[in-house]
């Protein structure tokens, strides 16, 4: 059986269920690299120029660890996922960077996904092209894509209900409806960050779990539907033309409107160009409504530095509550 490797980084944390179901329906084995460790980060940092962001380094570390076990590496070129919007330049150049930096690679599946133009090339045609490698039967590929989409929709709705990334990936395999018990009475904070910041277990341990241990409930942009995100950004003077940027700013504005949210934590990686502007928009729009803490990380992570700042922020929020 053919093996397709998926590095556990970047858009893995957004699209994995779709990818997995798509390939499995075509009778291909999916191999995912292991969890992020210190070694992953070291491997990636050694390969890349120092100024690239941490998620990139993590991704390259995963490519390095998986490349010898598989027949294909799945690294699509995400140019745009919706009309008149772009992804990050680094995601657009990702397959080229992998080809230039890593040697002895298996064959890459690196077709572009480009939905920039209205009514032009769509996501579907990308999967049809990618599926052609494994099956000549166009209808079968189409069916694989549809079942992938169904699973992806279930996955997103599970995330919206408050399940963690791993739970959502697991439960979305079956069509049974799962309900999460509502946790009442906990203090709620919003968390703004790209899926590969908020879901990577390595980073989650450093930041998210520290906060949750203190008895706070964290709401990420995953709990909002696309319409809710859209309603957050509709009043901005200019549409944000980065898909993730729109999601971050839109959900920050939406979460800030929610009275039960006591503070917002912004995650960004060191030197991220888009997030510097996104955060400026967030601060500008909501700074009077709710306190914001911005945490910036790079490959020299230390949990100590974060916990001091997180503790101070949480203490400030608790004190504010007592005064009220």
């Amino acid at each position, binding site marked *: 059986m053919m093996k397709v490797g998926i590095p556990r980084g970047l858009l893995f944390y957004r699209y994995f269920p779709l990818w997995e179901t798509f390939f499995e329906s075509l009778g291909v084995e999916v191999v995912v690299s292991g969890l992020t460790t210190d070694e992953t980060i070291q491997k990636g940092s050694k390969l*890349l*120029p120092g*100024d*690239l962001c941490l998620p990139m380094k993590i991704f390259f570390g995963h490519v390095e660890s998986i490349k010898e076990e598989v027949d294909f590496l799945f690294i699509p*070129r995400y*140019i745009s996922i919706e009309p*008149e919007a*772009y*992804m*990050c*330049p*680094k995601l*657009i*150049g990702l*397959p*080229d*960077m992998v*080809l*230039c*930096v890593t040697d002895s690679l298996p064959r890459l599946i690196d077709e*572009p996904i480009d939905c920039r133009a209205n009514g032009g090339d769509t996501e579907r045609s990308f999967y049809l092209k990618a599926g052609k490698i494994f099956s000549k039967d166009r209808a079968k590929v189409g069916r694989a894509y549809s079942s992938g989409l169904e699973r992806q929709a279930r996955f997103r709705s599970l995330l919206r209900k408050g399940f963690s990334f791993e739970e959502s990936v697991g439960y979305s395999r079956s069509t049974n409806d799962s309900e999460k018990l509502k946790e009442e009475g906990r203090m709620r904070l919003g968390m703004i960050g790209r899926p590969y910041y908020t879901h990577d277990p390595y980073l989650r341990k450093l930041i998210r779990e520290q906060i949750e241990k203190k008895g706070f409930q964290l709401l990420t942009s995953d709990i909002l539907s696309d319409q809710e995100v859209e309603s957050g950004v509709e009043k901005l*003077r*200019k549409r*944000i*033309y*980065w898909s993730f940027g729109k999601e971050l700013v839109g959900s920050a504005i939406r979460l800030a409107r929610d009275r039960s949210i006591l503070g917002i934590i912004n995650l960004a990686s*060191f*030197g*991220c*160009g*888009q*997030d*510097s*502007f996104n*955060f*400026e*928009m967030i601060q*500008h729009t909501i700074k009077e409504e709710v306190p914001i803490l911005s945490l910036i990380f790079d490959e020299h992570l230390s949990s100590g530095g974060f916990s001091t700042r997180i503790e101070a922020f949480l203490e400030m929020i608790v004190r504010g509550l007592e005064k009220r």
Partner: protein
Amino acid sequence: MRLSVPYLGMLHRAYEPVLRNAGVEIVLPPRPTKRTLDLGTKHAPEFACLPFKITLGSMIEALELGADSIFMPGGWGPCRFGYFDVIQEQILRELGFQFTMGSARNPDALRDMIELMKRIAGLRSKAGLYKLFFLILIRMSFFDWLLKNYFRHKPYEMNTGEMDQILERGGHLIEESLSLSQLLKSACRISVWFKKMKKNGERPLKVGIVGELFTVLDSSANMGIDMRLAQKGIEVVKSVWLSDFLNDRFRFKPFRRNQLKLSSRYARPYLRSHSGGESMESVGKTVFFAKSGVEGVIHIFPFTCMPELVAQTILMKVQKDLDIPILTLIIDEHTAPGGVETRLEAFVDLLERRRRR
């Protein structure tokens, strides 16, 4: 209406006399200095890029001098440039300035640009605007022509300083030419000067400068590395020129090739999709330079520039494959001219040693 346009290379010399002649009042702030950058850095987001900070500082200085409308093209793409206008307007308004920010929905479209000029320059006739716009573009290409020739002839000069004089006099001549026929006449005169200059025959080192548009073109952002290299007797070629950049969009020079397409052809084995900014030009032109006898390449870009980081990663491979030395200069507000000079000298030494080998 007092209009101000941020500096970008020699752009101000191309548009200023033309617009002034058409009755638009122009506010030219001082050339960006340390103060400009400090102002920009103080008010900009931490990880904003150097072009953002310098143009923001320049805008503050222009507003202090009484400008009431600012031109910043806007647009959209993977690079942050398209969002400059919004964030800068936000910051300037918070500082309490009153002004109009002129930006186009799509600055690559001629119609949008003309509409924008109509709005912020307060000019009426549409035909006149088209004429004005193309005159500015053509003047820009004459300035670029002058500078390209300067870089080409400078290393051969016998009497030190002769070329710099030609550059200065030629610049004034082009600045004063306000029609196509005048421009052509001036160009003829300038090319005679170039021909008459005494030359020695030694073949100089040839260095290419590639990277992000603003840092490649503007001396306030690149510490004047192009001039420094020229003064050392090195021939300089660049990956991007403002007139080529504009020509790729507005096609005002029918016989000049589309440079972006040319670059993507050369970049094809390494970078197959345009990933914003000048990443394609940086990779493509490096390959082109390596194949056309350029001995070393300097890759210059602002700190946190996303497209050029892609290019940097890819250039690591190009450097190995084509055996061409590449010096990467990443510029931010802490970069000191002294540090850049040392690195340039070391790089030039390396190139000289390679040639002797």
